[in-house]
C-alpha cells in the first residue's frame, strides 16, 4: 500500500477517490463543450473560406471591379473590421486547438494500444456490502501482465511499454500493482537475460516502481509528463521526436 494512503482515514480516502471521479467528469464535460464551440466556429470559417477560395464546383470567371458608393452606419463599418480581425485571431486559435486535439487523440489511442494487455487481465466481480451492490475488480495474474509487457508491442521501446502497463492498471492502488509488475519483470528477465537487449535488462532491474523512477531521476509527475509526450510522438508516428525524447530514459541515469 502507498505509504501516503496509510495516513488517510477511510473517509479521507473516499473523498479523494470522489474528487478524482469528479475531476474526470468535469474534464470530459469541458472537452465536449470546447469541441462543440470549435465545431461551430469551424463551420463559420469554412463558409468564409469557401466563399473566398477557388473551387472546382464553382464558376470562377472574374467579375469587373466597379465599386459603387453607398452610405453605411459607422458602427457597421467598425463592426465589420472587428469581425474580420477577430476571425483571423480565432482561425489561428482553432488551428492550434485542432493540433492540440489531434495530439491528445494520438496519445490516447497509442496509450490504449500499449495498455490493452493490462485491461485484458482485469477481472470484474460484484459483491454486496453494507451499502449495497458494489463493483470490485482484481488482476487475475500480475505475472502474465509483466510477461505481456515484455512480449507484446516489441516495435515500441521498453520504457514506453512499461508506461503503457502503468497507465493500463486501475488507478486505485495503481502503484502497488505496478510494484508487483516490476518485481515480475525483474524475475522474468533474470531467468533468461540473454533473451533481452541491454535496454530491457536495465529497465527491468527494479523491485519497485519507485526504484525505477529513482533510477530515471524523475518524480512521478515529471515521468508522466515526459511519457505523455513520447506517447503523443509515437501516436503521430514522429519517430525522430520519439528518439529525441527517449534520451532522458536511455541516458546515463542507469
Amino acid at each position, binding site marked *: 500500500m502507498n505509504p501516503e494512503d496509510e495516513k488517510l482515514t477511510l473517509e479521507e480516502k473516499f473523498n479523494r477517490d470522489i474528487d478524482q471521479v469528479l475531476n474526470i467528469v468535469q474534464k470530459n464535460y469541458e472537452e465536449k463543450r470546447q469541441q462543440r464551440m470549435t465545431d461551430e466556429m469551424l463551420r*463559420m470559417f469554412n*463558409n*468564409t*473560406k469557401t*466563399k*473566398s*477560395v*477557388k*473551387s472546382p464546383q*464553382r464558376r*470562377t470567371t*472574374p*467579375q*469587373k*471591379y*466597379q*465599386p*459603387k*458608393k*453607398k*452610405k*453605411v*452606419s*459607422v458602427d*457597421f*463599418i*467598425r*463592426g*465589420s*473590421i*472587428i*469581425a*474580420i*480581425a*477577430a*476571425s*483571423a*485571431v480565432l*482561425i*489561428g486559435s482553432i488551428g492550434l486547438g485542432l493540433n492540440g486535439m489531434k495530439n491528445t487523440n494520438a496519445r490516447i489511442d497509442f496509450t490504449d494500444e500499449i495498455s490493452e494487455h493490462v485491461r485484458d487481465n482485469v477481472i470484474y466481480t460484484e459483491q454486496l456490502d453494507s451499502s449495497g451492490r458494489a463493483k470490485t475488480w482484481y488482476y487475475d495474474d500480475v505475472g502474465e501482465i509483466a510477461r505481456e509487457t515484455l512480449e507484446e508491442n516489441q516495435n515500441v521501446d521498453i520504457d514506453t511499454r512499461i508506461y503503457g502497463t502503468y497507465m493500463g492498471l486501475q488507478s486505485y492502488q495503481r502503484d502497488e500493482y505496478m510494484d508487483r509488475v516490476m518485481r515480475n519483470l525483474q524475475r522474468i528477465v533474470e531467468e533468461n537475460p540473454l533473451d533481452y537487449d541491454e535496454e530491457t535488462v536495465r529497465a527491468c532491474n527494479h523491485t519497485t516502481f519507485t526504484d525505477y523512477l529513482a533510477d530515471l531521476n524523475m518524480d512521478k509527475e515529471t515521468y508522466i509528463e515526459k511519457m505523455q509526450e513520447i506517447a503523443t510522438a509515437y501516436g503521430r508516428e514522429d519517430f525522430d521526436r520519439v528518439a529525441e525524447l527517449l534520451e532522458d530514459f536511455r541516458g546515463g541515469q542507469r
Partner: protein
Amino acid sequence: MEEVKVIDLEDGTYIISDEISINGIRYVFLTNEKDMLDFCIRKVVINNNEEYIDYLDTDEEFDAAMQAFLDKHKQELEDFN
C-alpha cells in the same frame, strides 16, 4: 453614416471593408451589408488595363490575407476588447 464603396456579388451587396496589398497583389475584404459576420476575400487582377476581382487560389493565400488584415487592424481589435 459614412460613405463607403460597395460591390455586388452573386449573393448580395458587399461593403469593401478594406483593401490590403501583399507582394504586389491587392486583396479586397468584403462584408455582406446585411450581416457583418458574413464576409469573404477577393483579389484584384488586371486584364487589358481593366480591374477584375477573382477568388483566391489556395487556402494558404486566404490565411496570409487574414493574417495581413489582423496585422493592420490589431490595435482596433485590442481597443475593442
